[in-house]
């Protein structure tokens, strides 16, 4: 199989009748997008993997643009599984999200699973206008059940009006810088996740930092955002923690 290069795109805009229209909904290769039933003014899109992957060497990208006053929720139908390719080489998965003033994006994909022998570099870059709102969940699972993980590096950058609010990179698996599975970084936990919430009102009234159990924490960022960082033994327990916080803040 040859390496795959694909870019899927979504544009959401205010339809002028209290709802959100999707003038662009472009699937590409293994990245298929489906519009699902809207709720209120919010359009819903499901990312459906038409095949498992990315494999080594693939270049996948998703771009979503939420225009002024539009509301978009994006989920995925199943976990994304990074797999080794026929040829050795790193796969890339780049997510670029833009939200204009008054827009709101809920980016809630399923887990990214790093299968043994895979090599993937994921970047998620979010650019928000000053009054945009965001809920973004990112979960990584290191290896399928009973399997050693592949090499996974994931960078998450969130900017508001061009100013960086959050910039975090996690590298794990074989050949990652030493200590990634040790007591300072993951200590044997096989699921790790972040939930980023940006709301203009957090600038005035930030969340209070607090522990959410022993292995998760909710913190105010240095700007109008909040972050949950969590590690867990497995994907299910990680999701329970993140869902709990989300329900509480909604």
């Amino acid at each position, binding site marked *: 199989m040859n390496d795959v290069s694909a870019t899927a795109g979504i544009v959401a805009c205010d339809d002028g009748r209290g709802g959100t229209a999707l003038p662009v909904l472009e699937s590409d290769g293994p990245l298929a997008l489906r519009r699902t039933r809207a709720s209120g003014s919010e359009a819903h899109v499901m990312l459906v993997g038409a095949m498992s992957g990315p494999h080594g060497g693939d270049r996948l990208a998703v771009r979503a643009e939420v225009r002024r006053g539009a509301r978009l929720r994006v989920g995925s139908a199943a976990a994304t599984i990074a797999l080794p390719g026929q040829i050795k080489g790193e796969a890339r998965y780049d997510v670029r999200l833009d939200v204009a003033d008054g827009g709101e994006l809920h980016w809630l994909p399923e887990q990214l699973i790093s299968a043994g022998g895979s090599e993937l570099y994921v970047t998620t870059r979010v650019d928000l206008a000053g009054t945009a709102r965001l809920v973004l969940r990112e979960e990584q699972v290191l290896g399928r059940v009973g399997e050693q993980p592949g090499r996974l590096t994931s960078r998450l950058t969130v900017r508001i009006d061009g100013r960086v609010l959050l910039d975090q990179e996690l590298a794990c698996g074989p050949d990652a810088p030493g200590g990634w599975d040790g007591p300072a970084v993951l200590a044997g936990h096989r699921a790790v996740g972040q939930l980023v919430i940006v709301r203009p009102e957090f600038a005035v009234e930030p969340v209070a930092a607090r522990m959410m159990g022993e292995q998760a924490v909710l*913190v105010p960022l240095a700007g109008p955002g909040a972050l949950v960082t969590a590690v867990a033994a497995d994907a299910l327990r990680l999701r329970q923690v993140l869902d709990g916080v989300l329900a509480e803040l909604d």
Partner: protein
Amino acid sequence: MSRSALLVLADGRFPAGGHAHSGGAEAAVRAGRITGAASLEDFARGRLHTAGLVSASLAAAAALGVDPSALDAAADARTPSPALRAVARRLGRQLMRAARATWPSPELDAVAAEFPKGMHQPVVLGLLARAAGLGAVDAAYCAAYESVGGPATATVRLLSLDPFDATAVLARLAPELDRVADRAVEAARRVLDDGVEALPAASAPLLEIDAEAHAAWPARLFAS
């Protein structure tokens, strides 16, 4: 560069308050994740390649003359834990006081006046290196070494670990410290062309989580 100035700056007795901090080791000891020399080494290695690399890059970039306020904002974005941001600024203020007394310079005075609440400690460290006539490599080494030296010294007190064993951990990490310092300087040079987003953003989820838990303890031996 003056090798003697580097020794003064890197000396654990340099009066900048670092001895009151364990770099996350106290929380890791309490959680049972550091129990002796082997797990201390694993902890220190993880911290070196995450928080240590970021600190070393910030220090190197400040030493090269990159705008300190841009570096301070980049440090904030790479430090989600408010407890760790507060610690970094407190240590930055303490280091600034020591710096202005030891290597007085108009640049340090100007930065101190412009940022009365203090800046992240590695940024001040880089400015201090400049004032002391040191280079980006020296600043990176100081920051990288501090990122592991602090936890090692703290663990001696927390676990009554044999100081010989703790120091042997640092000696074994020396080749990796060299690589981290090199990477930090490379990244800092890229910042000159590409801006602060070229700085590494390596993160350690448990250091962030534990820092908040630790800050809420009613009694503790170390401030962080």
